[in-house]
């Protein structure tokens, strides 16, 4: 699965919260090119990004990616995922460079820096990509920039949508956070107190035997759309701006084991199905419940920070029902929901390049000895040096 970059250059002008680029040799060049490598979960991607000084735009020149898909009934395991990334990352770098500079014999000569994901994520896969980044840095004699994965999503989202200072809902396989910027940090206002939303959906998909291709969440969404899906009441757990999913998961798992309609039952007519639930019912109810919780805490954060723009990032953000619910909430508040976009929802190399190039332009390089990766790297741990330190006003 290779995605081709067809998106035009994005102007950085709407990002009024960004600081002007400091004077430096790198920033006096007409163009700056960086390569971004991402591989924190089951996707490995390499993106080439170019900054053009004359019109202050950033453009994705290429952004190929490969996804490791686990067999039905299984999650992706760190070891196999690491092997997958190791097997593909070099070819992806080659493809990315060729696609970015098609007629160039030495496309790597354009690259000014290499950005890679430092974390959070799975150790082995992260490590595999970091090794590639270090090797290329030594080979091409260009500096390294370590990037927080979530900051990558956010910066690509800001640039692609022109939303300068949105409340961010970050929803993926391993993360569930509501984030707002303040004082050079992306601060976490709400998050899951146990498992992540994507993890909850994936595990449920496994219980009812849905495939991992293209993703378990996608298959739950399709199942939920089936006609006649009935709403079943599930627990609903919101604590301030935090949420908890594990109790809900246990509850639906039990329902699935005890009350799910079996294929044979429905063939034998409807005689004893009054107390039974279908897969579609469960998928539908699970989505309705989990997403209502997410929208609720996002709205709390908006009210709390006096903000009216929302950006959803991370793989679960691709879910159409979540987008619709969010969009209703946001429009009732007179705000805007940023359009969904593959460039910042699904993990890819270009988003790492995007956050990385900002850091690079502000002189934030990572020394070789500091290029270790980390499974735990909270969004609020990295300093956002390229944004003004202005605070939001409370209402």
């Amino acid at each position: 699965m290779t995605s081709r970059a067809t998106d035009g250059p994005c102007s950085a002008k709407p990002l009024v919260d960004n600081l002007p680029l400091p004077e430096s040799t790198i920033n006096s060049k007409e163009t700056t090119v960086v390569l971004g490598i991402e591989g924190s979960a089951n996707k490995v991607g390499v993106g080439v990004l170019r900054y053009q000084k004359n019109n202050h735009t950033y453009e994705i020149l290429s952004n190929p990616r490969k996804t490791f898909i686990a067999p039905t009934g299984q999650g992706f395991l760190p070891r196999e995922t690491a092997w997958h990334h190791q097997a593909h990352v070099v070819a992806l770098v080659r493809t990315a460079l060729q696609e970015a500079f098609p007629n160039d014999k030495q496309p790597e000569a354009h690259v000014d820096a290499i950005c890679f994901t430092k974390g959070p994520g799975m150790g082995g896969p992260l490590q595999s990509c970091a090794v590639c980044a270090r090797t290329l840095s030594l080979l091409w004699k260009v500096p390294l920039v370590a990037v927080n994965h979530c900051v990558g999503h956010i910066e690509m989202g800001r640039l692609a949508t022109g939303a300068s200072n949105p409340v961010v809902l970050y929803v993926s396989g391993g993360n569930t956070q509501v984030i707002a910027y303040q004082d050079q940090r992306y601060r976490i206002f709400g998050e899951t107190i146990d498992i992540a939303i994507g993890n909850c959906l994936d595990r449920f998909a496994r219980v009812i035997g849905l495939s991992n291709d293209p993703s378990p969440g996608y298959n739950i969404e399709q199942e939920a759309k089936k006609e006649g899906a009935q709403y079943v009441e599930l627990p609903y757990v919101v604590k301030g701006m935090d949420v908890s999913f594990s109790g809900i998961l246990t509850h639906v798992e039990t329902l699935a084991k005890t009350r799910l309609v079996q294929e044979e039952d429905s063939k034998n007519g409807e005689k004893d199905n009054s107390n039974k639930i279908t897969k579609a019912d469960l998928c539908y109810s699970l989505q309705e419940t989990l997403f209502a919780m997410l929208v609720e805490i996002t709205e709390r954060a908006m009210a709390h920070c006096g903000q009216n723009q929302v950006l959803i990032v991370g793989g679960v953000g691709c879910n159409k029902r979540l987008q619709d619910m969010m969009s209703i909430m946001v429009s009732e508040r007179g705000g805007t929901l940023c359009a969904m976009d593959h460039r910042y929802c699904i993990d890819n190399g270009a988003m790492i390049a995007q956050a990385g190039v900002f850091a690079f332009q502000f002189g934030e390089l990572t020394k070789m000895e500091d290029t270790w990766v980390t499974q735990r790297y909270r969004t609020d741990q990295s300093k956002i040096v390229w944004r003004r330190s202005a605070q939001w006003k409370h209402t």
Partner: protein
Amino acid sequence: MTDTTASADVTTKKPPVFQPQDDWTLISQGAEARIWKIPGTTVKVAKERFSKAYRHPTLDEKLTKSRCRAEGRILEKCRNPKDSNLVIDVPQVLRIEPPVLYLEFLEGLTVREYLEDHLLLSLKDDDDTEKASELHQLAQQIGSMVGKLHTLGCIHGDLTTSNMMLRGSQPQSKRAKTENDNNVSKHKITLIDFGLAKNTTSAEERAVDLYVLERALTSTHPKLPQSFLETIMESYKLEPKKAAEATLQRLEQVRLRGRKRECFG
């Protein structure tokens, strides 16, 4: 068809459709409720939980109504506990008509406003001993209030500084002349917004309640000194029950879970 002509006793009848009057003023429009100020000899507020079009109608009705009821019920429990040592200052409940709750109006600022507009304003390291001691007192009040609430067998569910008010406190602008009245100790801390509150005796739930408070404090007030939180926890522990110990131990685990959570994707 129900008869909607005005008559004497509203409590025995089906509540009329909620209709704010012309002389009511909207003082807050939050994420799920509007707060109306109702003028009169005793000023009141109406807290109206509105319906959310984004969620399933069954879920929506369940949430708006159950939160309204829970809020009313637990407010009353805090005001009139069996053990009078555990009284917590909360607004008086006047009427519960889900999804609307009528409460006593509180004159004063939220703790959030008081912190941002006064206590944390240009707070330097250690030169301002007066503000520092006020912060200390405020933290003590918060800690012991939450301690009582938990001892009472309740959790609040949304412990933030917007959900605490200081009766009688005034905005900076109106306050300048009478600076002696500014002290936190003169204002009674009052807890509001019990929509996510519930009765529970679980240490885990109490710990999460504290965790929410801790996170709300650090994300909303990054300038708040670390000692503020420590003081809260110390005062929380002074409350009579051994349970506080268990809760704080549990809090350690909840925090660790947060930091150690596997994050990928």
